[in-house]
């Protein structure tokens, strides 16, 4: 692959807002999907001839289907409260990475084609007709949004740029201008069953290998069951957990928790992926199709519960959307929420004494936690609002003797995206991924210097992949990044009480 140019920003002390640098990221473009990626998803293989009209027609359709889009395109007052909230703006200074300016890329077109004001006095409100240049701006900047919704948290009206970037990607897909990274991956889910294209025999092989490894390391026959009919729990986890580092250590952790709890569980080769990139491209039908695999696997394997592994956007789709997309789940055991997060199980097991952790196993570490954007701002893990923050912290504090939180402006609901979410975790976007990680790395550096933090736990496959890749650019070791259940895996006491 050609070497992609990048620059690494100098870290600042929080909170620093850069001066605007117009055009700083205007040339950064992720690879465009070709027909082989587009057509299996039902999208045109290349940019259609009458794309201007087609895009306007699609926008009109979405305006009728999504209240968010309808209201958010009208109501922004350009107050600027969001302008210093996006990690991509903070890292790059490109003003089109300010949430409001990113939205305006669509709002200008909306005003021109859909509002009386835009039609009568377009210049006053900035209404603009389609040009090829504007379409290119859409493509580049709507793929520099990780849909993390930090802007929406701080907007006085809750305007959600993610909703707008999802709609923009949906419109672009519908006129034949899709993104290779997302659409190729969605194709793999449909064809092979998971984002990474890991076929069933390889999966079987991997899981058998893990069983041997754990047996060798611990002397306990911890199982990694696949396609076991009649198991109680269907466990769905991002496919990166099957081999990437530190993801796979997290998978070992889940397996040890299930083993020690004595729960009968299984993974599915048919639904061997928790991720759902249908969300990133804003396409309800794709998102639904991908989600239905999990329903079908649950029915096929006759399970009673569904549990998800560590993955941010997957947990958003699972927690917030699965019931809409693939429900109702009345065939499952009504005593458990559908679906559950592995953190809920682990926390519950620690509280009930079903598993015991010896935190001295992690005594060599000072641990902090990166709240994943989708988990933080779109979900819960338990009955209480905020459990998405408390449960991981409870588990981490049980597994690690030394735990330190990062700055309040960079944690919990104010957390910064890792810089690689929302369909940006692709090599050609490395420049914006490095820059987008800047606010997180600044907060991390702060606790490293103040409290001697050595490791950062993460509960998302994308965050883990992104950080292991970009932390070295800032002078930190990729080994700092840990799965939450990797730390659990180190500390859990096997045998005895099962």
């Amino acid at each position, binding site marked *: 692959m050609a070497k992609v140019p990048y620059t690494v920003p100098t870290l600042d002390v929080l909170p620093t*807002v850069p001066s*605007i640098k*117009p055009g700083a990221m205007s040339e950064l473009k992720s690879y465009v999907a070709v027909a082989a990626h587009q057509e299996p998803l039902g999208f045109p293989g290349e940019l259609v001839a009458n794309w201007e009209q087609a895009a306007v027609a699609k926008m009109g359709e979405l305006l009728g*289907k*999504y*209240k*968010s889009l*309808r*209201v*958010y395109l*009208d*109501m*922004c*007052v*350009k*107050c*600027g*409260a969001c*302008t210093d*909230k996006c990690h991509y703006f903070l890292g790059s200074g490109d*003003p089109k990475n*300010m949430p409001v300016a990113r939205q*305006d890329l669509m709002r200008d077109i909306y005003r021109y084609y859909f*509002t*009386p*004001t835009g039609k009568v006095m377009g*210049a*006053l409100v*900035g209404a603009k007709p389609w040009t090829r240049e504007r379409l290119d701006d859409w493509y580049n900047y709507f793929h520099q949004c990780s849909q993390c*919704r930090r802007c*929406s*948290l*701080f*907007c*006085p*009206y*809750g*305007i*959600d740029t993610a*909703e707008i970037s999802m709609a923009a990607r949906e419109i672009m897909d519908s006129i034949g201008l899709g993104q290779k990274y997302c659409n190729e991956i969605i194709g793999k889910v449909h064809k092979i069953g998971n984002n990474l294209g890991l076929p069933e025999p390889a999966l079987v092989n991997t899981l058998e290998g893990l069983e041997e490894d754990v047996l060798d390391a611990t002397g306990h026959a911890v199982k990694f069951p696949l396609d076991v009919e009649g198991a109680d729990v269907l466990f769905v986890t991002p496919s990166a957990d099957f081999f990437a580092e530190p993801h796979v250590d997290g998978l070992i952790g889940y397996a040890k928790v299930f083993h020690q709890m004595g729960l009968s569980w299984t993974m599915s080769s048919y639904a061997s992926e928790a991720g759902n990139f249908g969300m990133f491209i804003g396409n*309800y039908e794709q998102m*639904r199709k991908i989600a239905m695999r999990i329903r079908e696997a649950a029915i096929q394997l006759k399970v009673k519960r569904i549990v998800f592994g560590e993955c941010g956007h997957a947990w958003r789709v699972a*927690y*917030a*959307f*699965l*019931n*809409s997309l693939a*429900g109702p789940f009345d065939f499952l055991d009504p005593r458990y*929420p*559908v*679906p559950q997060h592995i953190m809920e199980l682990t926390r519950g097991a620690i509280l009930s004494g079903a598993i015991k952790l010896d935190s001295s196993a992690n005594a060599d570490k000072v641990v902090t936690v990166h709240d994943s954007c989708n988990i*933080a*701002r*779109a*979900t*819960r893990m338990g*009955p209480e*609002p905020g459990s998405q923050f408390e449960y991981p912290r409870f588990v981490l504090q049980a597994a690690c003797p030394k735990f330190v939180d990062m700055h309040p402006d960079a944690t919990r*609901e104010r957390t910064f995206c890792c810089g690689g979410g929302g369909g940006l975790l692709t090599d050609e976007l490395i420049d914006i991924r490095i820059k987008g990680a800047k606010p997180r790395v600044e907060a991390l550096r702060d606790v490293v210097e103040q409290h001697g933090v050595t490791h950062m736990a993460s509960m998302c496959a994308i965050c883990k992949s992104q950080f292991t890749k970009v932390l070295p650019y800032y002078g930190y070791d990729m080994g700092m990044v840990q799965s939450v259940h990797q730390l659990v895996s180190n500390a859990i006491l096997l045998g005895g009480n099962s």
Partner: protein
Amino acid sequence: MTGLSVFYAALLYVSAAVLVAGLAFKIRQYWTTPAPLKIAVTPAPTTQVGAYVRVAREAALFESLFYSNRWLWIFAMAFHAGLALVLVRHLRYFINPVPDLLALIQPLGVYGGMAMVGGLLVLLLRRFVIDRVRYITRPSDILMLLLLIGIGVSGFGMKFLNHTDVVAVKAFIMGLYVFDIRELPAEPPLLAHLFMVALLMIVFPFSKLLHAPGVFFSPTRNQADDPREKRHLAAWAAKLEG
């Protein structure tokens, strides 16, 4: 009856009609457009009542803005709260007889006007001074602030410089209720004031002023965080289940 009075009566009828019809159209549109997925920004209330309280706090206290940008919150609050007091003060021109309570809080309106214009001036200034805000500012954003400042300043003109015959103004307005066009005092500040208010009413449903009704329809704020407990399904999405 002068041509001027007829012109202003017509202007106010038209602008009020545009405001009401335009807002009714937009509110109906917002109301009826489905929200197919649960997208509340969390942590969020888990009950619908809780979500309504969250929206009420946003509308009344600008809660998110408070945590987002304290300075902006102060001046936005000065403007909006000031405007609210001014509107209350103006009720006496629309209600007969004037209730005692209204008469009592009447003097506050003047301070409200000062807060409003002061807040607006700062909001205008920051559009030129802060580079990020300058970048996102469109001509309409400036014009909207100038229009509101113009309304405030012309109002002060009547209060402090060119005292208007408010009794005659009230008679004119009460006349409008019964389609009886009475004489409007031909005072320049009053005419400017009313003209700009009419313009604001006309522009309202076509502009970013739609944030006023819109804030109540924002799914990230008005939805309860209960997707695991209750199945949420839009009509168009249900059709996909075939």
